[in-house]
């Protein structure tokens, strides 16, 4: 029934930016590409703020209905179960930490019908609670317990927003590789902002994926 890519991880690890980018660059192979914005913690910096861009790339957005999009109540889009059981390519952007895991736990039995189910652990090692293996392991356990699914891979997303340099990416990625080894998980992608892609391509090859930034207000960039 087509693939599912779930982007999970700590608050602010980059899940939303990655889900948006993967959705827009998705090779649809004739199937619908559906992005489910299941961030039910709060509506600051979420996928649903980028509807125009998604529409332009023929990505179907599943998000809390318009009237409730600024609601402060945990809510899931009404057609979620239907889309999970349909033929499509589904990308799921869940809320941070174990709150996101709860939603995946709820979808657990429907997800089993799909193949493959990629449950990505997104790590930015410059975030709090991602700075040592103890905290990473604690987050992983909390999420997996709630989701009733094991992570299948890691997306390394090391950056310091506007203060990112190639060396920040290099040493951050090194840290993620160490976590990956300890967790016995494969690193599927190293994601970097567009302007670092060419420079780092020779070093990281096909691991590298270029990311366009959507959720950051223009007035913050290059401050």
């Amino acid at each position, binding site marked *: 029934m087509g693939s599912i890519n779930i982007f999970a991880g700590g608050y*602010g690890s980059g899940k939303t930016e990655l889900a948006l980018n993967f959705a827009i660059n998705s090779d649809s192979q004739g199937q619908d590409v559906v992005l489910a914005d299941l961030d039910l913690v*709060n509506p600051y*910096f979420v996928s649903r703020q980028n509807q125009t861009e998604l529409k332009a790339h023929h990505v179907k957005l599943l998000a809390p209905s318009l009237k409730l999009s*600024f609601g402060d109540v945990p809510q899931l889009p009404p057609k979620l179960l239907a889309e999970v059981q349909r033929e499509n390519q589904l990308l799921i952007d869940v809320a941070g930490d174990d709150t996101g895991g709860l939603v995946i736990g709820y979808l657990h039995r429907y997800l089993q019908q799909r193949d493959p189910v990629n449950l990505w652990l997104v790590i930015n090692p410059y*975030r709090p609670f991602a700075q040592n293996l103890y905290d990473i392991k604690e987050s992983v356990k909390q999420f997996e317990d709630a989701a009733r699914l094991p992570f299948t891979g890691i997306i390394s997303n090391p*950056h*310091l927003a506007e*203060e990112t340099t190639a060396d920040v990416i290099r040493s951050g990625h090194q840290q993620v590789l160490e976590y990956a080894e300890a967790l016995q998980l494969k690193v599927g992608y190293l994601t970097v902002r567009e302007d670092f892609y060419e420079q780092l391509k020779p070093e990281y090859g096909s691991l590298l994926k270029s990311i366009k930034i959507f959720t950051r207000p223009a*007035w913050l960039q290059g401050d």
Partner: protein
Amino acid sequence: MTKVLMKGNEALAEGALLAGCRAFFGYPITPSSEIAEYMARKMPKMGRTFLQAESELAAINMVYGAAATGNRVMTASSGPGISLKQEGISFLAEAELPSLIVNISRGGPGLGGIQPAQSDYFQATRGGGHGDYHIIVLAPSGVQEMMDFAMQGFDLADHYRIPVMIMAEGTLGQMMEPIIVREPVTDLPPKPWATTGCKGRKPNIINTLHLSPEFLEERNLHLQHKYKLIQEREAKAETFMVEDADLVVAAFGLMSRIAKRAVMDARQKGIKVGLIRPVTLWPFPEKAFQEAAEHVSKFLSVEISMGQMVEDIRLAVNGRVPVEFYGRIGLIPNPEEITRQIMKIAQQEGWV
């Protein structure tokens, strides 16, 4: 030193921990909840106390009790929750209990919405509770300052025995920036007034009920004397290109950074415009405005509200210079629309 990419709420919470905050009492509300969540994850492991109270009222009264023991303690909330805390804040002010109160503010009135706002300015600076009191109000403009002001806030609170509020727009609580994590504070000031057990000394009593009219007045005069001292010493503002300005834009918090963009844009267009950013909202940095009023022909207050700080600017300049206002609520004014306001004034004044 390697920086850490933090959300404003996380940076503030970590700053409070670095400053030696021993206990957090709160009740979650968007967009402030990450402060409580951060504390819940970290404090028990540090042997400190995180307590989710049954309500905001309970939380602020727990702050009262714990602050009375001389410990550094805090609470955090957003507009509706801060309203509920007002009675407790009045009690904290009269009992002169150092404490940190955080408002990650959203739009009101009523339940309002959960989008960023600055419309709790009156509540924060006038004292939303009963009686003649003030609290110190700090308005950080970035994630680094969320951490730094949490630390400075505790210092000011202890030094003056006063509740200190940090007020930041919801966006500043939610957004991420790379910051330097400060060193932990190890040397805390002594608090001989605290209720720590009175073996071998006279009991310390912390109380706000003063039935003798003379003593009540004495207490009020004492507080007023303290507030005057704070006004003289602690009022703080940042200025940007004000020296030769014809027009000065005023904005605080995150809004001041957006306004700065507009000021730079307008300078490119040849307009002599500057910016005053009040860092302390109470005490209000009147001097910065009075000095600028010597040479500017207009002020423009830009706020995420229907116009609140604009009144303090008018009071500060006392009719010498006209003060205009531009604000929105629910949405943050962007640099382009502020630039348009600046250009509109420039046209009216005949500068272009």
